[in-house]
C-alpha cells in the first residue's frame, strides 16, 4: 500500500557529501478541507520522517499539513563508511513505513 522511493548513491568516496532523496506515497490530507456537504475531512498526514545510518540518526523532519501530498525530501550527508541507511515515516492513524538502502564507501 504504502510505497517509498529512496535514492542513495550506491558508491561514494570517503568524505564526500552525498544527496539522499526520498519520496513517500501518501495523501497528506491537511484536515482543513470540506466536502461539498460541508463536512470536515479529518487530518491524515505523515508527521515524522527520520533517516538513520548504521543505527545513528542523521536526519529527522517534523512534517505539518503544509507539506504537499506524497512528501518529497532531499537532504545531505557525509559518506563516512559503508553501511545501511534506514528510513522511517510515521503518521496519523498508525501509519508506519520503512525503507532502506546500502552504500559502499571507497577510500
Amino acid at each position, binding site marked *: 500500500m504504502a510505497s517509498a522511493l529512496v535514492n542513495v548513491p550506491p558508491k561514494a568516496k570517503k568524505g564526500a557529501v552525498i544527496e539522499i532523496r526520498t519520496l513517500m506515497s501518501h495523501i497528506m490530507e491537511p484536515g482543513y*478541507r470540506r466536502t*461539498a456537504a460541508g463536512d470536515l475531512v479529518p487530518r491524515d498526514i505523515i508527521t515524522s520522517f527520520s533517516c538513520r545510518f548504521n543505527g545513528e540518526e542523521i536526519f529527522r523532519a517534523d512534517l505539518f499539513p503544509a507539506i*504537499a501530498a506524497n512528501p518529497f525530501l532531499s*537532504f545531505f550527508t557525509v559518506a563516512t563508511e559503508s553501511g545501511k541507511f534506514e528510513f522511517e515515516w510515521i503518521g496519523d492513524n498508525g501509519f508506519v513505513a520503512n525503507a532502506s538502502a546500502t552504500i559502499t564507501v571507497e577510500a
Partner: protein
Amino acid sequence: MFDTSHLSRRQMLQFAGGAAVYGALPIITARPAEATPAMLASAIRDLVGEATVKVGKVKLEIPPLVENGNTVPMTVSVDSPMTADDHVKSVHVFNEKNPQPNIGNFHLGPRAGRAKVTTRIRLADSQKVTAIAQLSDGSFWSGSVDVIVTLAACTEEVP
C-alpha cells in the same frame, strides 16, 4: 473582525450558500481557518524564546510566482561550514497565511555535510514564507521570501 478583502470567490460562494442554509448563524463559520501574523509570531517565539533572530545566512528558494499552491518546490539552505564546532542544528519553516503557521522542522547535525533541504509544500495564499535556522552556538538566523500563489491549497472543497 471580518475582512472581506481576504475572501476568494469560492469562499464568497460558500458563505452565500451557508448563509442561505443557516440563516443568521455567525458568518465566521463559513470562513476557513487562517493563521494570523500573531500565530506566526507566537510559533516563532515558541522556537526561539527570548533570543534575537538575526537576518542572514539562511537562503530560502521558492519560485516567486506559483500557479498551484498544492505543490510548491522549496529549498532551504544555510551558509555554514557544518563542522562539529559550527553547524546547523535545525531549520524551521513557517508561513503567514496557511491554517497553521508551521510548514516543517528539519533536524540536521554536523554529519550532514551541507545544510540544505528540499521538499514540496502547500501554500493557501500569496504570502511570505520564513525559515529560521538554529546554529550549534545557539544563535538563530532567518531568511524570508514572498510568494504569489494563484491557486490556493489546504482549504479547497473535496470533489
